[in-house]
Each structure stands twice: as C-alpha cells, then as structure tokens.
C-alpha cells in the first residue's frame, strides 16, 4: 500500500477528530503523515492472514482474570466537585454553546 495523504484527506480526518487545523498546518501535516505512514506500511509485507489479533496482553497472561466486577452502587464524586474544574457551569450542569448557533 502506498500511503500518500493529500490535503482533502487531511481535512476529512481533522473533521473526524474534531480538530481545527490552521491553513499553515494542513500542508505540513499531509507531508508528515505521509512520511510516517510510509514507514508503517512495511507491515503490509508480512503474511498475517492466519494470525489472531491481540487487543489485550493481560487476557493472555492470566486467562482466569476476573474482568468484570459486581455491579453494585458505590458513592461517586459529589456534583459540586465534579463541576469544579469545568470552564462553565450553570444550574448544576456543564454549560456549553448551543449545537446550532
């Protein structure tokens, strides 16, 4: 696979990532991503069809590991503590700009 990311693709991915890029960031980003993907593309040379994917090394290390805890209610952060670090709050909630201006 030849990885060349063009300007349009950079802008598309930036939209997916909810990331604004300044005009002067777009072109360097396209070049840097293409260069990195070029190195990454070496894994396409490997024969991997029969190889299972690893999503987690722990499951492998300890198959009997109890991944799920009992679903019991526990105390959590008080509301005012949870809100204390927010840039804007109103009526006990996080205040955000309207989705549609």
């Amino acid at each position, binding site marked *: 696979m030849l990885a060349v990311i063009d300007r349009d693709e950079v802008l598309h991915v930036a939209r997916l990532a*909810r990331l604004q890029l300044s005009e002067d*960031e777009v072109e360097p980003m396209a070049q840097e991503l293409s260069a*990195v993907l070029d190195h*990454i593309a070496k894994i396409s040379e490997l024969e991997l069809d029969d*190889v299972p994917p*690893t999503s987690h090394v722990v499951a492998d*290390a300890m198959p009997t590991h109890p991944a799920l805890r009992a679903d019991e209610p526990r105390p959590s952060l008080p509301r005012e503590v949870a809100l204390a*670090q927010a*840039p*804007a709050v109103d009526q006990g909630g996080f205040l955000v700009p309207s989705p549609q201006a």
Partner: protein
Amino acid sequence: MTGILSLSAAQAATAIEKGELGAEELFTFYRERARADAEANEDGLNCFTWVAADASTTPLQSGPGWSDSTDAPGSGPLAGVPLAVKDLFCTKGVPSQSGSRILEGYRPPYTASAVQGLTGAGATLLAKTNQDEFAMGSSTENSAYGPTLNPWDRTRVPGGSSGGSAAAVAAGLAPWAIGTDTGGSIRQPAALCGIVGLKPTYGSVSRFGMIAFASSLDQAGPLTRDVTDAALMLRHMVGRDRCDATSLQFPHEIEPPSAERLDGLRLGVPREAEAAGAQIEPGVRESFERVLKLAEELGASIEEIRLPHAPHALSAYYVLAPAEASSNLARFDGVRYGMRAPDADDLLDMYTRTRHDGFGKEVKRRIMLGTYALSSGYYDAYYGRAQRVRTKISEDFKTAFEQVDLIVTPTSANVAFGLGEKTANPWSMYLSDYFTVPMSLAGIPAISIPCGLSDGLPVGLQIAGPAFSENRLLDASFALEQALGFEEGAARV
C-alpha cells in the same frame, strides 16, 4: 548537607527509621533543591511543573468509592522519603497537566492509585515533573511548559517522555521519581540520564488516575538512582485495583535484590538488534559488549536469539498507540475540565478550536495518525494488521524465553542527543524507541540500568524477562550494578 545527597531513597528511609535523619530535614533538603531549579528559569534544568510548599500537601486521600488506600502520610516503610511524580499522574488538588496547555491549571479531585500506593507506604509528594505532552515523545521537548535539559550536558535532551523525572533523579533534585512507559518512556530517559528505570509487566500497576495515552500499553514504574530503590518503589506500586479492570494481583512480593553472581543465567542477545533502522553508536556498542563480557565473568551464558518480528514493532506501535491516543484524547473537548477556546459560534466550533489551541504539534500529529488508521476503509489495513503483528511479537518472545532466561539489548542506540536535533523529522524521533517498543507490545517487564559512559554521556543496558519476572530482572540488574560500579553521582548539581 552533602551527606543527605549521597543517600539513596532506601538508605534515607533506613536512616529515618533509625532516628539518624529527620523526615522533615530530608523533605526540606529536597524541597529547597527542587525549588532552586524551578526558580532558576533559564539557568535550571526545568525538571518540575510544580513543587510542594511543605510535606502536608501529601494527604491526597480520594475518599470513599475510589481507590483503596491507607492513611497517615509519612508513616510506613517509605518513612517520609520525598517522591517526584510525573505530571500525568492525577494528584488531588495539585496541578496535573500532562505537559499540555489543554490541561493548564487542572487540579484533579482524586489521586492516581500508583501514587497512593507510595504515599500510603509513607512517601511524601515533593513535586510534579515535566514530560512530553500526554507522554508523546522521546525528548521532553514536546512539553507545553518548555523542554527539560539533561544534567550531564545541558545542550542535550534527557530523553522522554518521563524526562523531568529522569533528570530530577540524575541531578539529585529528587531522591526518586515515578514515571510511565508506553513504548520506552521510562527506560529511554533513564538510559540517557544514567539512572535506573523499570517498566513492569502490563497490568501489575494500576493505571487508575494516569492521564491516558495508549491504554493497552501504558504502565507506571520507578525511576531511581539504583536497582535497590527500584525494587523498593515497585514493591509498593503493584497490585490489583478495583478502579482498573486491567490491573492484576502480582503473583508474589517484590523482594530487595541481593544476587552477587549470575551463575547459570542464560542471557539472549537478539540478532535483530543489528537490523537496519537501529544504527547503534560505536560508544554504545562498546559499553554493551563490555557488559556482556562482565555478565559472562559473573557466570552467565550469552546466547544469540531471534526476534524475527521485532524490526516491525515500531511500525505496529505507531498504528496502535496513536489509534488508542486518538480515542483517549477525545475527552479533551473544553466541557468538563481544562481550557476552552472563547467566543465559539456553536458547540462544534468550540470543540475544534479548543483542541486546536490546546494541543501541541506532536499530539495533533498522533491524533490525526490514529484517527486515520481507525477511519472507514483503512481499519483492517492498519489497525487490524498492527494487532496481528503484536501477536507475532509476543510469540517471538515466548519462543525466545524457551531458550534463554532474560534478553539484553542496549536501551537506546544512542546517548543523549542535542536539543532540536530530531524535532524536524518525526520518524527519526520515533526511532529512539526501537529497542524498547517490542517489550511494550508484548506487555513484558524490562529495566534499564546504566552500564557505562560514551564520550562522557551515560549508556543504558536493557534487560527484559517474561511476564512477572521482575524479581529475577532486579536480581540480575543488581549483580551487574555491583560489578559495574557506575558512578551515578556525576550529574548531581
């Protein structure tokens, strides 16, 4: 007061317990040293993003419903020995910014479990240390709070991403420090600063309260002056935590290392260490070969092994880690914490501009890379393949550990490099982790210990073992450390 400076953390704890040294005297000694560096601005190393006013900042109790912890800071086996903590560990009421502008001024309402394990055992919080933003980097140049300098040579980087922790310990500005390692972020800065750094088996230390980079790889561990300190710190970090579903009960206690010989130990040197892409500097190669000879003199046997997929580890890592990062960093959206771009037109505009203003260059690059790799049409080609490469790398290690007990490589192909030397070319910076990333992908433990100097700069030896072999790693490291006699005080300021 040079007497205090020459004590390791374990020695200081013993001195306090025997009544030969006051915990407050020790804290004040290091607090003053850390403050002096923090206030020296351009003349300092810039190791710290925050320094405690006094030991009473330590309580850090998270309260009911959160991680289990014990009371009474200062009491316990760690006897009030001051601890430097990488910025990305949440510390209740204390700035925890992960080296990022997007978290400027953030003071979390709870404390990371790994830190609580140590403060619960009696450590006191000394300072927060500088790091690459969200732990993405190998030089600590990606911090929004300026680069950290290497105490051995201030024109050079300390490595990264735990560069502030490594430089602080090497310079004697903190007795010891806690860091995190995703692809080499404890081991590589430890190597470049001439100290000990250990990345434990994945899952052995809780990740709860660590500001996440790549969750299937992130692991906390010690950065210390010597191997004994690394064992002592790790002993109080490991354990199952109900706040981290991936944490495990470590199968045995971490013991103080004591081995003097390596009789019968089989050490494997991967042939792939010579592979293209890892141009090992001559001085690093010399140190490495010398330590292999020393290991043989101590009774170990050296065998060549194969890790056929190791040369592909970096490629797989730079799919998996950015993919996980792009997902983890979605939470920074200007709603619940951190900064928010002002005067947004609407919600989407607020998200995208906050992230534009708040993230640095390398973080944006990784978010973009990860989002691309996970996007429709590319998922199988990149993420799916990288996960399969990860399986092959784990299998390579399993096969190798049927032949040898431990694997040794240089930690880094080069000694500390110059500030700005690798920032223009991302892949050249990524290559810093060539030797450390395979172990991260396999989730196995690996330690870096200083093994000599090249042109006056430290060289690190990496030793890796099977999952949960930390005690064996520490013992082998200890025997080599005693035989090497590395002069670890040379960088103290």
